[in-house]
């Protein structure tokens, strides 16, 4: 039996200044890769990863989809630039800032709290820095990644954000987190 942890528990904070752009297209295309680097300054990530430079991150969502995290006030301008750079190539570039919620999770024992509600392997050798893992959190679809052991991020649909918040609160009560990782 793992011993219960003591001390502070992780906190979940809603970030409301993150702009999100959904980008669908042929990820192998040279035009697309060039357009992304030129406009955002970040390289297209490989499968299952997220790449970050400064305030911009790009996550690999599926073989034909990327999710761009950018400062909220730059969304319009970036979409225009991307559309221009992509020219005639088949793409869908869409502002989904209002459709998704981004959470910042800060504190100790984050892996433990998440492990209560998700089926993925959160061991340190599997869930590494740079990994962008889409999975479920309780009953909702989410994705996780982290900057450091004490600073993680989670996205979900905005309509399900309240559920995510409440579930996280219940799962992170002091004295109810087993020390595992």
């Amino acid at each position, binding site marked *: 039996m793992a011993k219960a942890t003591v001390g502070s528990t992780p906190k979940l904070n809603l970030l409301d200044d993150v702009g999100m752009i959904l980008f669908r297209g042929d990820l192998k295309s040279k035009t697309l890769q060039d357009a992304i680097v030129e406009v955002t300054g970040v390289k297209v990530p490989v*499968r*299952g990863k997220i790449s970050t430079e400064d305030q911009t991150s790009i996550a690999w*969502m*599926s073989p034909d*989809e990327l999710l761009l995290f950018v400062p909220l006030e730059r969304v319009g301008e970036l979409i225009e630039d991307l559309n221009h750079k992509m020219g005639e190539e088949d793409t869908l570039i869409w502002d989904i800032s209002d459709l998704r919620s981004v959470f910042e999770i800060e504190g100790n024992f984050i892996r433990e709290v998440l492990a209560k509600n998700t*089926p993925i392997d959160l061991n340190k050798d599997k869930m590494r820095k740079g990994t962008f893992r*889409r*999975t*479920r959190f309780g009953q909702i679809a989410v994705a996780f990644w982290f900057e450091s052991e004490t600073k993680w991020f989670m996205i979900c649909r905005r309509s399900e954000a309240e559920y995510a918040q409440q579930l996280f609160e219940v799962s992170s009560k002091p004295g109810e987190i087993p020390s595992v990782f």
Partner: protein
Amino acid sequence: MLKLVCPYCGIEADETELVSGGEAHLKREGPDSTDDDFEGYLFLRENPKGIILERWRHAMGCGKWFHVARCTVTQEVFGTYPAQTLKPPPRIMEVIKSRRTGQETGLNSDNAEKFS
């Protein structure tokens, strides 16, 4: 608990992250088909005791459909492959043949053509 590797994401997804889509490689019967063929296409599904080819969707992930070859008796998974194909690729067939022989394959005259 079934764990399948999504051929698109390359990650091992848990059964609860997936949605089952039933039998794979159905042949669509269109407006020119007979009533019997159309009924078969719509409603009649195999329920084999043994090897089955199924469709699954990585619902809590990339959202793509893919195919799985597995055994309903032993819960053994032979492999997964992308959905853009009419029959299982040779690598999947090799795995099945290396682990099953003759009668044990569970193949009968109805579904044998799918595997050939």
